[in-house]
């Protein structure tokens, strides 16, 4: 079985996530794009684990899932606080700190 298509797919997902972070305005959507990047990495990790014939990559994917879950907790807490204060989750609105 060739692993190349999976790597290409993961690279495409990573790029979509990356472009999403840079272009989207809503903090929740930006955050979802970050999650997409992490999941693209998961796909790459398990594919390389298959290609290399060892388990390290698969174990890595589990750790990435746990880390992503922890990040959701912290991230949503921060985004919620900002939303309740400003009544907006747009990353463009939070612009007091500059220059």
């Amino acid at each position, binding site marked *: 079985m060739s692993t190349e298509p999976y790597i290409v797919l993961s690279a495409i997902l990573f790029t979509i996530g990356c472009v999403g972070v840079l272009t989207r305005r809503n903090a929740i959507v930006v955050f979802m794009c970050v999650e997409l990047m992490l999941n693209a990495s998961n796909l790459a990790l398990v594919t390389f684990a298959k290609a290399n014939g060892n388990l390290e990559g698969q174990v890595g994917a589990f750790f990435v899932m746990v880390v992503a879950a922890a990040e959701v907790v912290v991230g949503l807490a921060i985004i919620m606080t900002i939303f309740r204060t400003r009544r907006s989750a747009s990353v463009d609105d939070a612009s007091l*700190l500059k220059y």
Partner: protein
Amino acid sequence: MIEFSKPVIGYAEVWPMLLVFGVACAGVLVEAFAPRRVRYATQVLLALVGLAAAFVGTVMIGLDLNETAGGAAKGGITAEGAIVVDGPAIFLWGLILLIAVGGLLLFAERELEGGVSAFAGQAAALPGTEAEREASTRGLDHTEVFPLMMFAVGGMMLFPASNDLLTMFVALEVLSLPLYLLSGLARRRRLLSQEAALKYFLLGAFSSGFFIYGIALVYGYAGTMEFGGINEAISNNTGNRTLLLAGMGLISVGLLFKVGAAPFQAWTPDVYQGAPTAVTGFMAAATKVAAFGALMRLYYVAFGNERWSWQPMLWVIAILTMLVGALLAIAQSDIKRMLAYSSVAHTGFLLTGVLGAQSASELSSGEITSLQAVLFYLVTYGFMTLGAFAIVSMVRDAGGETNHLSRWAGLGKESPIVAGIFAFFLLSMAGIPLTAGFTGKWAVFAVAMSAGAWPVVVVAVLTSALAAFFYVRVIVLMYFADPVGAGPSVTLPSVLTAVTIALGVAATLLLGIVPGPVLDLAAHAGEFIR
């Protein structure tokens, strides 16, 4: 059926780190079960005892590390190859723990706000509402900051001691997540603080996305995540080099973001300005120490044989970082933003030391290695930054801290001692002889020079001169400008902040006058274990 063999955790070597994590967990339990009035005292005491015990343990472990690799390195790899406890790791642990003690004392400070800490009384209460006023009249405190800080300290200890890419990723997240939350918990100027947390979090998560994808690519190249294995794969030149180079680049993005190097420095000024000053001081000092430790271990151990690929990249990044930091610092009118850009410039100087890496055979005997120089610089940088931010937290008016530079005019007349100490820290950051900053700069420039990176050193010397301008401008402002309006006022802190400042002054002064012992200690730490 795969046979399961029991993993061996070298508890004897890693217990200081586990103790810090244990204290953090105990702190969470205290938060859940202890009544509110005893929480503050319990948390502070618990964290302080934990950090002190971990420091003693680190020293003890450091004293009986076995020599390996023909005496060039000390210590060993433990916890099934996930953690390495060697000389530099122990050195960094000690430094992180000392900075953490200073940070803890700043966190625990309650005199400055009149009986409450600098953290939001109730983070969930919206700014400007009845609930927030009630929380502040009842004198509520978020004592959760202490366990959060301990989790961050644990992550910082794991970061430079990790021996494979996965452990390094987990450590990166364990140290970052609590810091995101802590930056959003300021008692005053809460909108700024929340915005800082949002920016830090989104950009931090973005950079860790790059980091993990880079890990996946390097794993695809080498077939292993362990640093030793990656190094071996590179020297055997097996696998697809495109994967290696792309992976190295992406991992570097993640690490350079954490140390705040240009072009990934954009978050630094915003977060440093918005976060509570105690958090800023702690994070500016300790995160940089941990991240530089991890950066060096990754580059020197895992990518050591690929030096010709990453050294030119670091040349460019170091030059860019120093220029961006020094030039933008000149334009700042907020003291915390200025210190943030100054820390960006310091990142550039530290990178100058990192790119001075040479193999042992290229060094003449008695010459300091780049690892030694960077470790020394981290000590000087850590203490003067912590001290400087502690001073910033003391200059206040009725609305809290006054961070605008114009309000600092005439501080020398109002409080000669505070202004004098701050001026001393600034002179040290500028690298004036007889302060720690000078010795640190001299060390990193010397190693870069001996590695043939003279263009970087030339830029570094020029930017040091440029940086001296904005440091001296603040000193001139404090001593020779007339105060505007009522003038700045200094709130006297409790003994906690005073101890932190004293620690900073003592370290900066001693390392400037007698740098020998710490330089020897850094040399004694030896090389990274490969």
